[in-house]
């Protein structure tokens, strides 16, 4: 038997592709233009609101909302100066509070969820199924329902109005979700590696600390990012659980001073929003190279 008979068949797909004008991996000019137009349009729609906030942040309040908006109209850095100098409320204190609360939430949530997820991924223990189920159930309650009971709990603990109390509240939502996410990630790390580590002389905690955590860095980055965002932009819990004093507010709560019943200071609000967005962008930038692998690595082993 020779392979002569099969060679015309091998040539066939190429010929067929030429006849219809398509080849694998290339597309026609019209399709290219259509595709790029659609993508560019969608990108512009997505970017425009952020862009307009940026434009507005440089305009005085009187020029912020106009019938014929202009890109530049008496633009200056005045809004930023006023916001940052604390003329409208102790902005820097809010900023500090937010950073502290978000970082604490991230640290506690990542630590707790990583250890919990490792246990759930590797060990058999009674109540494992119900634990994971309860984590899932917790996600199903709307935040509004939780405010009153959480308020009572914090009051009983003497943590009402403190930053630590708010951090714990954020952890109640961040930890279950992060645990789920990390358990899925840990499950993709072969158990053989744990066992090789144990044979090589690691204690069970050593395996977690020196092998599993370094390998789970993409998963940890995603988790940290999620936990940070949970705390950074949250309004409802923050306004309910922090004391009303101006210097103890977080950014998300503080921004409300620019929006009052009869008057909205668009310029200041926009400037403050831009400043608020910067740390989130920084965190995103730091973890983004892990985010892509992190979000997809659950799918295939590698």
């Amino acid at each position, binding site marked *: 038997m020779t392979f002569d008979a099969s060679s015309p068949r091998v040539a066939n797909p190429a010929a067929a592709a030429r006849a219809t004008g398509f080849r694998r991996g290339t597309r026609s000019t019209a399709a290219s233009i259509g595709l790029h137009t659609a993508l560019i349009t969608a990108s512009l729609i997505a970017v425009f609101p952020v862009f307009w906030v940026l434009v507005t942040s440089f305009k005085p309040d009187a020029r912020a909302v106009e019938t014929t908006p202009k890109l530049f109209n008496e633009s200056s850095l005045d809004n930023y100066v006023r916001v940052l100098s604390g003329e409208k409320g102790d902005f820097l204190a809010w900023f500090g509070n937010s950073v502290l609360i978000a970082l604490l939430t991230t640290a506690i949530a990542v630590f707790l969820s990583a250890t919990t997820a490792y246990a759930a991924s590797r060990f058999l223990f009674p109540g494992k199924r119900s634990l994971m189920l309860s984590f899932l159930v917790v996600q199903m309650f709307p935040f509004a329902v939780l405010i009153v009971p959480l308020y009572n709990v914090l009051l009983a603990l003497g943590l009402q109005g403190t930053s630590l109390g708010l951090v714990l509240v954020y952890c109640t939502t961040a930890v279950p979700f992060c645990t789920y996410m990390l358990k899925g990630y840990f499950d993709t790390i*072969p158990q*053989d*590696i744990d*066992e*090789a*580590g*144990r*044979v*090589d*002389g*690691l*204690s069970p905690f*050593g395996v977690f600390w020196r*092998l599993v955590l*370094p*390998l789970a860095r993409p998963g940890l980055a995603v988790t940290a990012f999620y936990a940070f965002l949970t705390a950074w932009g949250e309004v409802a819990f923050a306004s309910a659980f922090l004391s009303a004093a101006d210097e103890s507010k977080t950014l998300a709560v503080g921004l409300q001073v620019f929006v009052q019943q009869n008057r909205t200071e668009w310029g200041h609000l926009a400037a403050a929003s831009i400043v608020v967005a910067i740390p989130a962008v920084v965190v995103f930038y730091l973890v983004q190279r892990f985010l892509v692998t992190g979000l997809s690595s659950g799918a295939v082993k590698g």
Partner: protein
Amino acid sequence: MAEVAYDSASRIFSGNPPVRAVDQLNLDVADGEFLVLVGPSGSGKSTALRMLAGLEDVDEGAIKIGGKDVTNVPPKGRDIAMVFQSYALYPHMTVADNMGFALKLRGVDKGEIKNKVAEAAKMLDLTKYLDRKPKALSGGQRQRVAMGRAIVREPSVFLMDEPLSNLDAKLRVETRANIAALQQRLGTTTIYVTHDQVEAMTMGHRVAVLKDGLLQQCDTPRNLYDRPANAFVAGFMGSPAMNLKTVPLTSEGAKLDGVVVPLSRAALGGASGESLSEVTFGIRPEALGIVPSSEAGMDMTVELVEELGADALVHGAVRIGDSSERFVVRVDGRTPPTLGQNVKVAVRDTSEIHLFHPETGNRLDG
């Protein structure tokens, strides 16, 4: 350097009914010996190895390494090194770090680790790759790194769990010889798990055959092949497998398709002692041969000829009683019969006949 002993060790997985993955295993491995655990999948061979490694609990009995009871000692206290089927290299470390990791954990001096890693790398031809991460290595190189990681430790026992099953056929044969030579050189007690009976035969000083968690036989490869303790071992060891058929027994011998094959006195004695009317008759393909049609033999219709070059395997049907049984005969590769041909097959050497109890499967001549 140490001897290893399984003392009625069992591993029982909970379930309904509980599964005895390893059942009352008694096995003594001498210092410096290369012992191969072999069996079909689910036979408990890997579980037995993992029990020795401390990765699996011992539910009954005990395990000793170097005379010391290690039944309840965690893996890190057992002075063992293990090569995994998946290699289980640490993906975030370089080859050198992978190999030196165990020494680093023991607090060995950095310069000494470097020397030992370099020495092992030289032995395994890995010197060029010491700075690479495992993902930048080929399968064969990864396998060698896994071996290197075990060697650098200088443990008292090597454990290998199917270390060659992820390699391609050619590399497997090559690496097989390398591992055997390396073990010879280092003289370290080695327990090697495989499902491949060719690996077992070629590598082990002794081979332990397991089935359903029970040890069937543990002996040298030669003895396993020549005197299998039961029908399972007879069928498992050797490729192609032994022809095993249940045939009627007469006072002269076993009755196959009108031909009575004379049997040894010991075998006949064993069979008559149990007053059996049937026996499981086993004969390896190479102990059968095609004879001219004038001579006495079984009539076989050729159904399949596998030409292997040096020889050929002829599969064919032989009538035994009312049913048609399949036999495999090894013949000279240059003159194989053709498909559909009727040939006469005879036993070349009656001393190569194995008789087993038709129900228990045990060897009849003791």
